């Protein structure tokens, strides 16, 4: 089982990284979106390997199911030919390279400085299999007030979206 888990972990990681790279480099924007979805799903698979089932399904529902559907729809509605013919990677190439190098240097520096403290604590052998229930418990007991505030915020956002989508003068049908 441990061997299988290791193999799966490396497979999923390679998939995630590979499709992330593909996503950035594809000229065709829809292909990019599909590769982004692959990367998200691979990440979800890693969550599942870690027995974080709830996180796994939330990743699928929210990222792959919800957000990505919106992305794909919007992308497909704009004329894909225009987007593919856009000459990308021209002027910003130098700036982007410089920024990437700086970012990579920062990350490497952080790892180098913190290499002693980066060791993760040994994983607990028995993780509660009921992490959906655990999250529910935490939300409704310990974090009830923030949870409710967030829900009100979401409600406000939803109503706001509805109001903005309605053109002025439209009757509410």
């Amino acid at each position, binding site marked *: 089982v441990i061997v299988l888990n290791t193999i799966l972990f490396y497979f999923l990681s390679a998939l995630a990284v590979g499709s992330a790279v593909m996503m950035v480099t594809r000229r*065709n924007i*829809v*292909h990019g979106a*599909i590769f982004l*979805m692959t990367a998200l799903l691979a990440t979800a698979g890693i969550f599942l390997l870690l027995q974080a*089932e*709830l996180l*796994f*399904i939330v990743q*699928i*529902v929210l990222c*792959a*199911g*919800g957000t990505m*559907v919106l992305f*794909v*729809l919007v992308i*497909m*509605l704009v004329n*894909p030919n225009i987007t593919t013919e856009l000459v990308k990677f021209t002027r910003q190439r130098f700036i982007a390279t410089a920024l990437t190098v700086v970012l990579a240097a920062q990350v490497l520096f952080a790892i180098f400085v913190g290499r002693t403290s980066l060791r993760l604590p040994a994983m607990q052998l028995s993780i509660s*299999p*009921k*992490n*959906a*229930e655990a999250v529910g418990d935490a939300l409704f007991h310990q974090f009830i007030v923030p949870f409710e505030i967030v829900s009100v915020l979401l409600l406000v956002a939803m109503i706001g979206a509805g109001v903005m989508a309605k053109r002025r003068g439209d009757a509410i*049908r």
Partner: protein
Amino acid sequence: MADHSPTKAEAAEQPDHAPDPLQSGSEVPAQDELGQRGSPQAPEFLHPRLRVLQPVADDVKVLLKKDGWSAASADRVTFWIAPLSAVIIALLTYLVLPVGPAFQTSDLNIGLLFILGISSLTIYRIVPGNWSSEHRDSLIGALRSAAQFLSYETAAALGLASVLLLSGSLSTKEIVQAQLDQGQWFIFYVPVGFLIFFICSLATTNRARVSPPETNSEIVAAHVMENRNFHGALDSLAEYANIIVAAGIATTVFLGGWLRPLASYRDRFPGTSVELLDVLPGLAVAAISAYCLRSGRRPQAKIRKAVMNWTGGICGVLAAALLGTLFAPENAMAGVHGAFWFVVKVGAYMYFCLWIRFAFPGLQFDRWTRRSWRILIPAAFINLITAAMAILASQDGGLPMRFTTIVATVATLGAAAWLAKDSPADPVAQTADGG
């Protein structure tokens, strides 16, 4: 009818060869799905005796067909991948559906969420498949499909949520167990939830109407139209697999899964461990078998005779298994009988879906979608609240569950009727009603 080999016309009349989902796209005439009509033009390159094998021959033909592309500019890779992912997504869902106490691939503790999440990916079958064929019209079709799918998926999830109040768990296994413990299928506690889920499953599996949401005369479903080869077959397979998935969810969540009717009634024959009600399905299947074998002996078209004999034989074996396992160890008995009930319920649900599809005329896409947002989703919310109140009243207030359920159901239905009457959701229905 004389005992001679069937003429062509006769053979065409007999419902001898079940329509094959693989060879026919999702635009199968609804009658075909119910087997009311035989395949209209079966190519006759098989010997009459072998015509039972016609579906297999059709499948081989489909497998060997060349790929067809709609336009030179079509996005071939995406077009190629979309049906594959569709099948994978559809089949993944079976992972968590318990077919009997003994048969469940994996009991994820997020079972129901898993099903909902995975099936929400179905949209990736429709949208990229249509986009990649580089047809403007089919792109619009894809958007319509996506909109309808999203609206009904939302309502379906809300309908399912009402059951979670009762089961207290997302695991499919525990949902069935809760129905056993509470002595009642959940359809009787939250009938409106089941109704909502049923309507939504009609819409999300495209069974509801004679025409799928893509169809106006010019708006086509490219993923169906232009994929007549193996990939098209996969796509249709996914479509039908989705119906089975919906039926499986409804069975597990609302109809008691693998429990038999009256699961809490456990009187046994005196002196044995055989429960009274467990004998009935075996006897019923044995009766069907006897009937088929008897009517198979009457003079009639050969193909019909063969079908009757085969059905009778299969039912005989099934009856033997059902009755024989009564005396087997407890686990074997529960497994076989559970699987039997699960399959029967799934079949009945699917039959209902197809039945409705072919009994009622289709509604236009926009009316369907509007109906979901205007009526179905609010009704699902109301149902959730009233169901919670009913459960609270019976658990804390000590009222009998039957009473609270009836009150809650009537309240929800009343609210839904008010919503339907009060919102101009369906102009045509309104004018028809004189409203």
